[in-house]
């Protein structure tokens, strides 16, 4: 009886080991071709990828794996060779990436816009202001709470650009009203809604954001708030393992008439979040 007991036990142990090894192997082998896209959080959080990628998968059989991080981190990821395609929204960083030889070329994909949101009570009185720089100036002078991404993302870089246009970046002694969340757009909006603060957000994340509470859009529509997204294929010269063919296929598909129509057709709560740019850009 002891012997059978032992045998069952060792059999069970062997099974568990096999299962563990099998799950390692099985879990790590994707079915069919796949590419990794390093992307900004807004495209993922807005649900755009959730809508586009299954269609792309059906049409091409290519599985797209999206790692959604801030623009800065996405670019560093791609520089280390951990992504095949980059989808980001900060022109200067993108051009630097391509010029340094990490990317093949920048392709305009689409745009949406940034909005400045804040509490309905609007303590800094920015509602109706057209110039976003003017709005920030009022926030600064009234020392009303402003929540910054502070995470080197595209939106963060854009916000810093706006402050810089005002003459200087917020400094350490501004810490009483200028808060850096160091987090993604959604997390930052959560904080803003919690402390009744102002915040710069891309429109897509804002529309999809479910915890708005007192927050509403206070400033929008200025050309300075335009938010263009581009695609960059990571260069095979720098990282020979990059899946260039599938990556290029993904870029071509998104920038095709078909892909652009799909982007334009994406709606959240009846609202269009992204506006295609690729066909326009290709004409120039």
């Amino acid at each position: 009886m002891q012997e059978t007991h032992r045998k069952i036990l060792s059999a069970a142990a062997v099974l568990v080991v096999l299962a563990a090894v099998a799950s390692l192997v099985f879990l790590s082998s994707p079915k069919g071709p796949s590419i990794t896209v390093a992307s900004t959080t807004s495209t993922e959080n807005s649900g755009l990828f959730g809508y586009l990628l299954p269609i792309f998968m059906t049409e091409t059989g290519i599985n797209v794996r999206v790692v959604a991080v801030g623009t800065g981190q996405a670019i560093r990821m791609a520089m280390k060779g951990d992504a095949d395609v980059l989808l980001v929204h900060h022109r200067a960083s993108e051009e630097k990436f391509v010029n340094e030889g990490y990317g093949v070329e920048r392709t305009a994909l689409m745009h949406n816009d940034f909005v400045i949101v804040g509490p309905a009570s609007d303590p800094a009185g920015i509602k109706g202001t057209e110039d976003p720089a003017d709005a920030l100036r009022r926030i600064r002078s009234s020392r009303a709470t402003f929540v910054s991404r502070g995470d080197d993302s595209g939106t963060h870089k854009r916000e810093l650009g706006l402050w810089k246009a005002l003459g200087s970046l917020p400094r350490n002694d501004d810490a009483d009203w200028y808060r850096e969340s160091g987090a993604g757009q959604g997390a930052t909006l959560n904080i803003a809604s919690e402390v009744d603060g102002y915040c710069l957000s891309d429109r897509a994340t804002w529309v999809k954001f479910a915890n708005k509470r007192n927050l509403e859009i206070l400033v929008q529509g200025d050309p300075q708030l335009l938010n263009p997204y581009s695609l960059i294929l990571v260069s095979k010269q720098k990282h020979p393992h990059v899946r260039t063919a599938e990556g290029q296929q993904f870029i071509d598909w998104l920038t095709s008439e078909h892909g652009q129509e799909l982007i334009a057709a994406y709606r959240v709560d009846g609202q269009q979040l992204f506006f295609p740019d690729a066909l326009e850009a290709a004409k120039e």
Partner: protein
Amino acid sequence: MDEFSNASRTALHLLAEMHPDLIEIVLLSLRVSLSAVVLAALLALPLGAFVALKPFPGRRGIVILMNALMSLPPVVVGLVIYLLLSRTGPFGVTGLLFTPAAMIIAQCVLVFPIIAALTRQTVFDLHEEYDEYLRSLGAGTWQKITTLLWDGRARLLTGILAGFGRAIAEVGAVIIVGGNIVHSTRVMTTTIALETSKGDLGMALGLGIILVLIAVVVNTAVVTIGGSASRRTL
């Protein structure tokens, strides 16, 4: 309170209808964490026992290190494994970054010291008691190890379950090495982080409830095993 009740309603709804996304995420979490714990146990049990039984130079240092590593910060583990598995890192060619395998490795690293340290302590204590009996019968090292591990099974299982609890509740490491990719590396904790950041608290809370339930089940198991073991054999 209104948000909380809204979120709870959504959460219960998702649980009640067994939403496929939810199920997929829960299953992936279980698979990743179970694999990690099994792998960690396979390595840590013999190693912990070996350290307990065999004196060698630097053993004290190893013991201190094992105990210290129990509180290894997950984000640091995540970062280090990220750097190792990155394409430009030493193990880049394996292509494991942003796969469940990478998450298993990270959790394995987190859980290993817990199981190893507990194994060492358990085997050490039992060995104090069994040493003369085992030597009287001329047991070899391997026979000693298997005897002590088997007789320490109740405590070891408790430690393994504690390790599983740490693995499945951990977010810092898996979000870095897994990348939180939909249908691929999105597990309960990373989804909770993501959904919370999207302000979608229902899904987050639904998964939170499942995590808490798992914690309750695991701890009940720990108590039951400990209790029945002490009633029957200890």
